[in-house]
């Protein structure tokens, strides 16, 4: 079996430069004036210089009306007049500059994210406006308490403050009010409930005081509280939104167009999602199959590593079904697209995925657990204070009510509301510098509880690209092979090329699809590089000469006139420094296991190399779920690290999950976090940061709850005045924020909010494609 037909033809998918190009003209929007607009995603843009270069090049084109590249999102908005077909030419000029280009499509989820972002920042601006103006009046009143402000002036100030504060609270409190109402409707309680109650009661009580000409007006407190909480909420939302859109960008860059076969026999490049069931696509050797479907013409073998973890390619012919994400290795095929529901393997995976997600249910965030008892406790305290003063303290109902409300104001969970989000913002910022994008809200908390790590093998512990493991003894063979291989984009050819890249490229190399390369040397002799069949090697004899230890390997042969054929062998390689990472994790006390869909004999040597005794091969997706469930029943908290479609249900079933950026789209979606880069080195960082973040979040929660309860006696005794409330709230928020910043050492706050280098999806997309 080792004698896999290794064709050196066709081209692997990669960003921009090779592979089929998407016909961009189909994505152009044209307005009534004939102005064409195209949104593109540009890779490798790092600085203003790149922006300048691209914009200048485009502006030099006379038809271009407007070209604006956004350095933060790397989106280029290109507008021109004339022919819509110029799209491909213009995109080509950008690629000529060395920047990969992908079509940008907006997803509804991200649109919603962006809208929430904007709503939050507008609420933030309004609360700032309100807080600043009301504070200006409040300071005057507080100063007046110690000096000579008359009651008339004070009431006048209070009325102005009320006029500013009420609409501002109404507007900027929306994010909290809506979320609190939604939670209460579901019969739950969350952090926003006590916040909303606190803010609303503070405002109403202050209105009553203003109406009756009383001295205690807390409008400033309510607005400052909203302002501080909105900062936390905005940053929290922003960080996760950035992670989500980075993951989305990766998907778009990895998404290759497919070659749709038109009725007249010509090919058109279209995005995969534009295909309907029954459409036929042409897949060249070395290309990834872009749709689920059935082979209608051609024979080939396909690499299904990304789907089921198997490293041995499968032979397919007319009538075989294939899945999107598999790699067509040897010959061109025509695939008829089928809808997802018809592809049984994928449908089964989706069913398992949904079942796993349901079973897991909603993880309850730590802060929400705290709020669960915090809210009733403080509300009971407030009621107690009211009843106590009214029944036993001899106060009138309004006076006692005032004290009850004061208890609520002072216990309003301002710092508590910030305690967890601010920690997550800092942790996510730190992690993004270690190339980990955290997508899920509760991911860090769940990661902190992990004690067992389960790895998938193919694509997770190993890379998907083959590496040259055995070269002929004759050094000339390698350099000759490399010079010929330079003409091909096939993964195996590129692996040979990488092994000896300083050799000049051979001219006039002929590429026979599905078979290999031919080159005629100076003396007219024919040199062939390709599969055993192509080079005329007897495969059966060769199979015997290879022992089973080489079963993992894929071969390429080189034949030269008058010399013995030379053999190149390839095998999937461990990600760099995987052994060290595994050792580090073991030292930290994590249990490590491998669960692979690949055959056991391929898993075993790898498990031995890494010193992992707990490994299993031949696992179906259902087996993986079952194994994870049994670990869970044994009280373990499992982190699943995987990339394949077959890992997806297990990713959803595990306590927390992590996928590499090279994973299939559905796996990236199912996982809590995505790591970039060719190594697993970010994994120990992720787990350490998650634990640090948890301990800081707990410190913050304990501090803010404790702090609030310290003030409770003061409030119950009726000693709270507006300026005490203002100081109490602001100081606890500041302390919580500074505590969270400890996570990130000396980094400044601004640096965390703008993480740019590590968030460049294209750098990674290029490396993995």
């Amino acid at each position, binding site marked *: 079996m080792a004698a896999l037909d290794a064709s050196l033809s066709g081209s692997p998918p990669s960003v921009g430069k090779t592979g089929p190009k998407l016909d961009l003209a189909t994505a152009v929007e044209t307005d009534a*004036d004939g102005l064409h607009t195209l949104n593109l995603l540009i890779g490798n843009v790092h600085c*203003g210089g790149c922006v300048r270069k691209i914009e200048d090049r485009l502006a030099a084109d006379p038809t271009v*009306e*407007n070209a604006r590249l956004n*350095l*933060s999102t790397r989106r280029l908005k290109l507008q021109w007049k004339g022919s819509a077909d110029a799209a491909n030419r213009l995109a080509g000029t950008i690629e000529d500059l060395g920047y990969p280009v992908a079509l940008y499509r907006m997803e509804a989820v991200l649109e919603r994210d962006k809208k929430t972002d904007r709503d939050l920042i*507008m609420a933030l*601006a*309004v609360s700032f406006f309100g807080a600043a103006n009301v504070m200006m009046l409040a300071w005057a009143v507080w100063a007046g308490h110690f000096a000579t402000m008359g009651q008339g002036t004070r009431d*006048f100030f209070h009325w102005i403050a009320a006029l500013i504060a009420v609409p501002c609270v109404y507007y900027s409190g929306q994010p909290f009010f809506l979320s609190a109402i939604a939670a209460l409707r579901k019969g739950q309680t969350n952090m926003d409930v006590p916040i909303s109650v606190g803010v609303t009661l503070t405002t109403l009580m202050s209105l009553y005081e203003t109406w009756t000409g009383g001295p205690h007006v807390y409008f400033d407190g309510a607005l400052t509280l909203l302002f501080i909480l909105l900062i936390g909420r905005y940053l929290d939302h922003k960080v996760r939104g950035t992670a989500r859109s980075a993951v989305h960008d990766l998907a778009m860059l990895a998404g290759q167009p497919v070659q749709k076969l038109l009725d007249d026999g010509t090919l058109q490049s279209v995005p995969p999602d534009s295909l309907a069931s029954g459409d036929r696509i042409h897949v060249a050797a070395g290309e990834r199959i872009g749709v689920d479907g059935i082979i209608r013409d051609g024979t080939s073998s396909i690499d299904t590593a990304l789907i089921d973890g198997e490293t041995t390619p499968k032979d397919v012919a007319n009538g075989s079904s294939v899945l999107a994400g598999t790699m067509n290795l040897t010959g061109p095929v025509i695939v008829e697209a089928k809808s997802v529901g018809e592809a049984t393997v994928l449908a089964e995976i989706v069913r398992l995925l949904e079942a796993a997600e349901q079973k897991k249910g909603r993880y309850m965030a730590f802060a929400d657990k705290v709020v669960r008892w915090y809210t009733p406790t403080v509300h009971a305290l407030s009621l107690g204070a009211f009843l106590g003063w009214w029944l036993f303290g001899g106060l009138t109902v309004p006076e006692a009510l005032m004290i009850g409300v004061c208890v609520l104001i002072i216990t309003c969970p301002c710092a508590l509301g910030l305690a967890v989000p601010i920690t997550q913002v800092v942790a996510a910022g730190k992690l993004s510098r270690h190339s980990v994008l955290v997508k899920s809200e509760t991911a860090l908390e769940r990661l902190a509880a992990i004690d067992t790590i389960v790895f998938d093998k193919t694509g997770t512990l190993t890379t998907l690209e083959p590496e040259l493991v055995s070269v002929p003894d004759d050094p000339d063979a390698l350099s000759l092979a490399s010079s010929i291989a330079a003409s091909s984009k096939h993964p195996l050819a590129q692996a040979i090329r990488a092994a000896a890249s300083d050799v000049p490229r051979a001219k006039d190399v002929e590429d026979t699809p599905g078979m290999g390369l031919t080159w005629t040397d100076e003396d007219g002799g024919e040199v062939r590089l390709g599969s055993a069949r192509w080079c005329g090697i007897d495969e059966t004899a060769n199979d015997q000469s290879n022992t089973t230890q080489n079963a993992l390997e894929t071969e390429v042969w080189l034949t030269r006139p008058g010399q013995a054929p030379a053999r190149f062998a390839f095998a999937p390689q461990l990600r760099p420094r995987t052994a060290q990472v595994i050792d580090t994790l073991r030292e930290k006390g994590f249990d490590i296991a491998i669960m692979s869909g690949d055959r056991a004999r391929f898993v075993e040597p790898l498990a031995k190399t890494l010193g992992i005794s707990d490994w299993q091969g031949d696992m179906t997706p259902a087996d993986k779920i079952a194994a994870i469930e049994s670990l869970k029943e044994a009280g373990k908290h499992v982190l699943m690290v995987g990339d394949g479609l077959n890992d997806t249900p297990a990713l959803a079933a595990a306590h927390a999950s992590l996928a590499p950026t090279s994973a299939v789209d559905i796996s990236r979606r199912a996982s809590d976090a995505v790591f970039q880069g060719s190594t697993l080195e970010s994994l120990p960082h992720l787990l350490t940061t998650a634990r640090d973040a948890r301990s800081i979040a707990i410190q913050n929660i304990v501090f803010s709850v404790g702090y609030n309860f310290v003030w409770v006696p003061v409030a119950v005794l009726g000693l709270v005045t507006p300026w005490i409330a203002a100081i109490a709230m602001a100081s606890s928020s500041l302390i919580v924020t500074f505590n969270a910043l400890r996570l990130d050492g000396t980094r400044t706050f601004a640096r965390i909010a703008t993480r740019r280098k590590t968030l460049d999806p294209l750098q990674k997309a290029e490396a993995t494609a």
Partner: protein
Amino acid sequence: MNVLLFLIPMALFLSLMGLIAFFWALKSGQFDDLQGAAERILYTDDHPEHSDPVNNTDDKP
């Protein structure tokens, strides 16, 4: 104290203007590309097309 009747509306008016200006800037996309804006200031201005306002969507004559 009559000065308050003048100063307070003045203060409110000015900060309200600030708020409106911020909303305008937000809506017109001034905050869409903070990193890009920071770099663009360094361009020498020999390319007039680069000096267009941020929301450069209107048709040129």
